[in-house]
């Protein structure tokens, strides 16, 4: 299975995410006591791209997120975040061999996330995240939620509170700017009408969008979304797609997302990494991953050889991936299914 990490066709060419990675995860291992949640995982997230991390339940996707955003300290491995173009290999190796957490480089800066506490990752390395179970400040208004996200610039502007207490004009200006930014994001996620309502009052889909807006208010270079489409109806998940495209296009933010909704994943991702039992089983563009037999096997929990023999399994594959992809992967489409499709 491990041999199928790259299909032979991909082996020759170098992918964009390897040339200009915003984040590289190398040999990441996370153990909880005796349980190995992630085992020697390496992948890159391309700058300005949307990268999806998929896999069956319990594959370790959220653990990867928690390692990247500093909520877990990885047992082993290096997680390097780069501001500025290119691989910056020189600086990465310099920081790794020093005891520094990060270092400016000619192109920008390099951050070793596994050495940084969670709040510094958001503050300095500019990695923002959302949560699988939405974590908004429910008792605060929508506007306040977005202002809390701008805590660090506002703290500096308020002279670490002293200037703010005295009411210095510099702080007022900064506060107005932060409200303007909040208004901008509220307009983008179409929540401007509800700016003064408590966040807990919003319907589920709006809360998901608000959480993304809140993460974007920290001006991240990398936005990590943990199942952003969970619980959304088809129209809402279509809007989510557009929002993510907008964020990438207008703000140049790279996006790393965990998602179960294959419709969303296949439509918007440039790059897909597939995990199973903490191990990477596939890595490539959507077309390559879709037809990778090991991915299909992992999703259905069967060995490759079993696939062709079991028509009921085959029909599930067809349903999940579409007929074309299934045919490409060498799965025989059951006749019953074909008839059904004609209707």
């Amino acid at each position, binding site marked *: 299975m491990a041999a199928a990490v790259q299909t032979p066709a991909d082996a020759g060419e170098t992918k964009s995410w390897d040339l200009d990675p915003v984040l590289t995860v190398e040999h990441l291992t996370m153990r909880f006591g005796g349980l190995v949640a992630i085992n020697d995982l390496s992948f890159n997230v391309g700058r300005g791209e949307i990268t999806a991390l998929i896999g069956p339940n319990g594959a370790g996707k959220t653990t990867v997120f928690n390692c990247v*955003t500093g*909520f877990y300290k990885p047992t082993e491995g290096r997680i390097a975040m780069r501001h500025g173009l290119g691989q910056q290999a020189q600086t990465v190796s310099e920081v790794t061999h020093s005891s520094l957490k990060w270092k400016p480089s000619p192109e920008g800066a390099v951050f070793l996330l596994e050495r940084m506490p*969670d*709040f*510094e*990752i*958001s*503050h300095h390395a500019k990695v*923002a*995240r959302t*949560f699988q179970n939405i*974590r*908004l*400040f*429910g*008792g*605060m*208004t929508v*506007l*306040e939620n977005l*202002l*809390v*996200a*701008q*805590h*660090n610039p*506002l*703290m500096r502007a*308020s002279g670490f*509170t002293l200037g*703010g*207490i005295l009411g210095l004009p510099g702080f007022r200006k900064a506060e107005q700017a932060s*409200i303007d930014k909040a*208004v901008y994001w509220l307009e983008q996620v179409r929540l401007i009408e509800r*700016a*003064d*309502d*408590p966040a*807990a*009052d919003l319907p589920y889909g709006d809360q998901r969008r608000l959480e993304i807006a*809140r*993460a974007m208010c*920290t001006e991240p270079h990398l936005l990590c979304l943990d199942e952003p489409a969970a619980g959304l109806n088809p129209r809402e998940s279509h809007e989510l797609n557009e929002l993510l495209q907008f964020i990438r296009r207008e703000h140049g933010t790279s996006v790393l997302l965990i998602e179960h909704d294959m419709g969303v994943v296949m439509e918007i991702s440039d790059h897909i990494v597939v995990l199973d039992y903490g191990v990477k089983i596939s890595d490539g563009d959507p077309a390559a991953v879709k037809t990778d037999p090991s991915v299909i096997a992992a999703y259905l929990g069967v060995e490759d050889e079993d696939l062709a023999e079991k028509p009921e399994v085959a029909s599930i594959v067809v349903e999940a991936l579409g007929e074309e992809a299934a045919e490409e992967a060498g799965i025989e489409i059951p006749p019953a299914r074909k008839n059904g499709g004609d209707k």
Partner: protein
Amino acid sequence: MAAVNNAAVNTAAVDPNSLQASLKDALLAALLAGALGLFFLGIRTDIAPGGLAVRTRWGLLLTAMAIVFAGRLLLNLFVFKTKRPVTRAISGSMAGTGSALPTLGWWMGRGLFGFALVLPFFFMTFFPGQQRQYIDLAILIMTYIMLGWGLNIVVGLAGLLDLGYVAFYAVGAYSFALLATNFEFIGFWTALPLAGLLAAFWGMILGFPVLRLRGDYLAIVTLAFGEIIRVVLLNWYDFTGGPNGISGIPKPTFFGLEFSRGEGGFADFFGIEFNSIHRFVYLYYIIFILAIITNIVTMRLRRLPIGRAWEALREDEIACRSLGINTTNTKLTAFAIGAMFGGFAGSFFATRQGFISPESFTFLESAIILAIVVLGGLGSQIGVVIASIVMIGGIELLRNIGFLSQIFGPGFDPTQYRMLIFGLAMVLIMVWKPRGLVSTREPSAVLKEKKKIGADMVAQGEGH
């Protein structure tokens, strides 16, 4: 189908809310009371010559049954077996999420402030006989309001349950007392900021190890720290005077003028007749201004990023960290600023009393301050004021209820029952207003329209 119809007819025939049902239920309760009380109330054995004599007390038993009958009937008619229970009407009127309350609260705040501003003169004009007693009580209430506002930063805004707040009150009081008694040149006004700073410093020192803990553990450790401070004060005899405390703490001066009789005093300087009440009025205004400063600073901080971060911390600590907020520092600032105001109040306490000892800083004080904050409504400034007046003023009011001793006999002292009344009041408030008297939250930033946030949305933070 027929069975369903039958059932419907049956339920219609026996209305559970009818007078008949209520009477029947009350009668049943009375009979039950009679059966249970037969041996406890109805029959009594007395020691008589040659053994025990059985004595019957049917009158008592019948009275008990009548009381149960009447009580049950009233409860049935107004609470249990009615479509509109009185309790719901009361709690409904107290919930007050309607639009009338914000303006009511606004006016109430202005009204209370106005009254507090002229309070000493009010009592001097209308109650000249008891002016000293009343102004002293006002000073006490104002001290608790200030302490409540200080603790409100930690518990109400940052959501950290602190059971040892009295430690900072003690640090402030002892800082002032020790500074003022050991150094001639340090008076109240120079010692006040020092005491506040020292209390804030202790808040940080205690905060560092404590703030890694969460929820119930945090509450227990702050409780322990409160006790440690008190025990250290009690046992460090050479420095603090141990159980003897510190006496001879100087009184505050008015720009160097002492409130004393004769040459060079306040009255002499202004050419007015000396009156011992001047000092009380002056003390009242000191604590009033200190409390108002506490309130203004707290309200300001709420609108600043640090205050917003406190409230966000109360709502969700993990989300805070994902947004780049250093939660340890944020908690420490809440602890330190809360402790600082506690320290100010402590040094005022020391100068007012002129004598302090560790006995004034027991856990009961922490509990009372916390009760004021919780009853008033976490995070609500006006709620703290109301709760202080009710709780501190209420206890003092009990001392003045003379008519109760005419009913319960001359040995009855209502103050003996204050803890009982306290407990009862708390249970009642927690039943009807579980989030405190004023539980709505005002947003700290508004785009178009200011809307109050209902208590059910607002998280209460750690350990609640």
